[in-house]
């Protein structure tokens, strides 16, 4: 005989487990996004602080600018957003919003970095990287690994990555300034665009800025 009560109880318990799992998962996802939002706020504050410091440069000298002048949290923030993008536990709209803010923060940081290099005659050590998530771009993933490895190798190197097709006006302006073609992945070093996948050795050899960075790193490590 069928004991329908037992089936109902089993169903309710299973549904409860499912509901709890979804509830806990949503709670943790919210906490994670909150964590990303906190980092973004800190980065924004860092940039504001740097901008203020930069504005004061007129009254002070470049020597007063310490090593922590630029925010150090942009890299980890990017990693967390990439992770969030690849997981389906997060609310897509929230992630999209955070990604938008991240791109804008990157641009602000980039502008600051650029002004700093011009004003203080510092060797530019940054790369603008354009990738795509909306169409198939196998090389973009590989290029991402290369740039992460480069950043690990040269902590002073700043990599600003942008989703080429993302609907942010500032990214479009950036691509039009540097005349970046939609042949992705693309990187801009010292205003020079390079297209397609480039292995780490080739990048180090062919891009003058990196070559110098490599020399500087090996000199400092040999000392």
């Amino acid at each position: 005989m069928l004991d329908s009560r037992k089936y109902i109880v089993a169903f309710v318990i299973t549904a409860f487990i499912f509901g709890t799992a979804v509830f806990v998962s949503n709670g943790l996802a919210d906490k994670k996004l909150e964590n990303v939002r906190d980092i973004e706020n800190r980065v924004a504050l860092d940039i504001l602080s740097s901008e203020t410091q930069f504005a004061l440069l007129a009254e002070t000298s470049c020597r007063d600018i310490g090593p922590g002048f630029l925010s150090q949290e942009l890299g980890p923030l990017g990693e967390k957003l990439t992770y969030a993008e690849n997981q389906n536990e997060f609310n897509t709209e929230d992630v999209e919003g955070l990604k938008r803010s991240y791109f804008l923060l990157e641009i602000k940081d980039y502008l600051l970095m650029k002004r700093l290099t011009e004003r203080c005659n510092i060797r530019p050590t940054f790369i603008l990287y354009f990738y795509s998530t909306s169409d198939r771009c196998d090389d973009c993933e590989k290029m991402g690994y290369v740039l992460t490895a480069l950043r690990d190798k040269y902590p002073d190197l700043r990599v600003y990555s942008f989703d080429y097709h993302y609907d942010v006006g500032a990214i479009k302006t950036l691509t039009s300034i540097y005349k970046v073609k939609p042949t992705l992945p693309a990187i801009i070093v010292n205003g020079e665009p390079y297209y397609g996948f480039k292995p780490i050795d080739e990048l180090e050899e062919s891009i003058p800025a990196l070559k110098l960075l490599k020399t500087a790193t090996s000199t400092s490590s040999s000392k």
Partner: protein
Amino acid sequence: MLLYITLFISLFFEVFLLITYLEVREEMKREDKWRPTKFPTVTVIVPCFNEEETVAEAVKSILNLDYPRKQLSVILVNDGSTDNTLKALNKFKNNPRVKILDKTNGGKHTAVNLALESVSTELVGCLDADSFVMPNALLKIAPYFDDQKTMAVTPSIKVHKPKNFLQHIQRTEYSWSIFLRRMLSSMGALYVTPGPFSIFRTQVFEELGGYRHAHMTEDMEMAMRLQKNHYKIVNSHGAHVYTVAPATFKGLIKQRSRWTYGFLNNSFDYRGLFFNKRYGNIGMFILPIASFSIFSAFYLVAHIAWGWLSKIIDVIQRYQAVGFNWKLSSPSFDWYFLSTGALPVLVVTAVGLTIFILYLSLRLADGRFRLHQGVFYYLFLYTFMVPLWLSKALFDTIFRRKVSWR
């Protein structure tokens, strides 16, 4: 979505099993204390085909059963063996309780049916020639027949002296089956009366006929036939029978694909039981979910394998891109990078329940919980072995290929 549905059904089944366990655990304790009030006459049939190495031990184990000698007889059937099985059987020819039959090979069901013709006892059972009964097995089984409605009693089967890792996996798997069978028994949903020492009222064969070929799984067909006719089958978790488990991959896959093939084809033959309210739990729940589990096992393993494959591809791509120039430690121990989606939480819950049921199974099978190597093999390897025989069974079923015992 399919993954969530699969998980929901699997979780539902596990919860259902645990509720059943809570319902019957007191009853199980009572059963442990049962002693027979009467000793019905019993015949045990041992069908043999090329079993020269194990049959003597099997017969000795029956003759050593703790049961009134006059009430127990044995029929040994040599089913046209090509080895020295008949010689091994003839060693028992002087035992007044043993009868030996010799016939040309026709399959297990023909051997048992031939023996059934000369059975006149109240109860009759089979023992596969590669299995051995514990001395108290029949004493444990007999009291269940005090209930006049009980038509068959199945035992708990354990693996005889596991040696290699495959047999250790099967030892754990059989423990799981002991628990499962006991729960199915309470639901009235047993769909196999296993070859090793399932005992029937002789009237079952008089009323429903003898064994059939039944896609090489006559013990499954017999149970389904009993269920179809609303004959009660119960399980005695205390009656222990030991069987020799396949020691090679080839042997294991062959045995399991035969079982799965038998299940698929007998289920098709008895499709009238499916989703039929008249058959209660077995029709509405157990047979459908057993069929579902064949396909869900494929799906889940494919999903896990795909996840691993993606990770391997990722590592290869990373290696192609940067060689060994990447930090193995990144991302660090940041909880942020822990997978906390609903799916992993549900998988962890389902695995947790599986481990808990396994704990109960091991406790039921061995009398107390003992962790052994087979448990780890079972947890980490078994799931990935299952699709091997499932796919063979599906292939054989779809292309109507004949399966064999050996």
